[in-house]
């Protein structure tokens, strides 16, 4: 406490000091009075009283010498005179605040096949180093879009480091690498092939199933040696997009009338302790049940069971297919067009209608022209 106080140690020289000290003590508090020699003594006073004490001592004919000034105030005062140190501290704080807003390091974890430096340089090229301008969700999306190998990725900013955790896709060994075959994307009929590199396994007019190999990743050279190559080909096929719809000439339709009866029960350990049930008087009804815990602990597990009975009415609906034919065809068509892709060219549209025993099945087939060759990664991703 004494060290925190702003004390000033002064030396007094002269005779009859006791009288003067007694007088001063009436207005100021004095500390640690010591007699050094017969005419010399030392005393500590608060810095704020120094001027007053000094004046009183000098007016009494005593010589005053300030020996030491201590305390936190003095420390701050002295410290503030070190301009260089202050400037250095201010500069350091400023630099620290400035650089804290930036990401200085990118750490990538979980890579085996992928190259860390490739990912780091990709992030550096596409994103600013300033923390506020890096949206981790965007980084994750872009990484996933640009690196097919990435199965899942999470990005977080920890301090001044961008931490990227990657989970790579694992393929079967035979499908690994750039020498994977080209597979059929869908069930289709081949209509044109344009081989660039590899061994073609299909010809025009072939009907292939999804996943069948179209181009093998090798060639047999003039010496009969098998040589691996990156398969490349432009294969177009007719793809059938099928949409279905059904119609019944007559059927029973059950719907709620809007009337209901509610029944509530409170149970404890399976035993019913309260209920406000009314008798279900509906001729035809359906019910919904749900139960909730009334207490949040397991000490007294009170359960409230609520049952609601809805009155229903069943009626026979009769409608011939001809009446709704256009709507049903449109419904089947829309179901087929769900599978339409961006670059598909529609060649033909056929609606097949089969009626048997009052049930009409409608199948709408859209034939499109599509490039069907995909590599394993895309096939795997789509499946």
């Amino acid at each position, binding site marked *: 406490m004494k060290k925190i106080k702003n004390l000033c140690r002064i030396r007094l020289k002269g005779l009859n*000091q*006791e*009288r003067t*000290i*007694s007088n001063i*003590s*009436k*207005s100021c*508090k*004095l*500390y*640690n*009075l*010591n*007699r050094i020699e017969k005419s010399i*003594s030392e005393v500590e006073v608060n810095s704020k009283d120094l001027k007053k004490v000094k004046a009183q001592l000098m007016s009494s004919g005593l010589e005053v010498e300030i020996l030491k000034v201590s305390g936190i105030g003095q420390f701050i005062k002295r410290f503030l005179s070190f301009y260089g140190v202050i400037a250095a501290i201010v500069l350091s704080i400023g630099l620290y605040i400035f650089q804290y807003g930036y990401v200085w390091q990118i750490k990538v974890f979980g890579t085996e096949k992928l190259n860390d430096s490739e990912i780091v340089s990709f992030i550096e090229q596409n994103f600013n180093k300033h923390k506020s301008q890096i949206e981790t969700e965007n980084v994750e999306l872009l990484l996933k879009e640009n690196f097919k190998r990435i199965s899942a990725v999470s990005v977080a900013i920890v301090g001044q480091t961008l931490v990227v955790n990657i989970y790579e896709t694992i393929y079967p060994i035979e499908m690994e690498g750039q020498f994977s075959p080209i597979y059929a994307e869908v069930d289709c009929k081949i209509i044109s092939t344009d081989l660039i590199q590899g061994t073609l396994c299909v010809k025009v007019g072939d009907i292939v199933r999804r996943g069948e190999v179209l181009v093998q990743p090798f060639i047999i050279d003039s010496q009969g040696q098998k040589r691996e190559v990156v398969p490349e080909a432009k294969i177009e096929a007719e793809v059938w997009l099928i949409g279905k719809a059904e119609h019944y000439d007559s059927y029973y339709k059950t719907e709620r009338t809007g009337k209901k009866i509610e029944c509530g029960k409170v149970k404890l350990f399976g035993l019913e302790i309260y209920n406000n049930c009314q008798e279900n008087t509906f001729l035809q009804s359906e019910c919904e049940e749900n139960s909730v815990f009334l207490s949040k602990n397991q000490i007294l597990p009170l359960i409230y069971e609520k049952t609601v009975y809805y009155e229903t009415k069943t009626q026979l609906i009769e409608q011939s297919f001809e009446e709704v034919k256009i709507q049903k065809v449109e419904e089947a068509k829309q179901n087929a067009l769900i599978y339409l892709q961006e670059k598909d060219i529609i060649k033909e549209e056929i609606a097949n209608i089969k009626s048997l025993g009052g049930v009409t099945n409608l199948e709408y087939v859209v034939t499109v022209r599509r490039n069907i060759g995909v590599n394993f990664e895309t096939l795997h991703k789509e499946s």
Partner: protein
Amino acid sequence: MFNFFDEIKSLLSKCEPEALASFNIVNVAGKILYVEGHLGLTELGKDSIAFKVKKGRVIVEGQELTLAELTENTMKIVGKIKRVEVF
């Protein structure tokens, strides 16, 4: 909170009312001497410190004495206190 001096004063007020209005000295283990009601310092030395009190003078003798605190009517003397005499 219990006030030692006030408690003594209230107990002894009937016996010595004048004496209680004078000064109080508390010697703690011969190392700290607390004085209340002094009227001014008369002597300051390493071996003795003297001060005036109402109707008298007190001399404190010892070794390495320091007047740790001094206010208008209280003082704290620190050191090896051997004797306290009231004249």
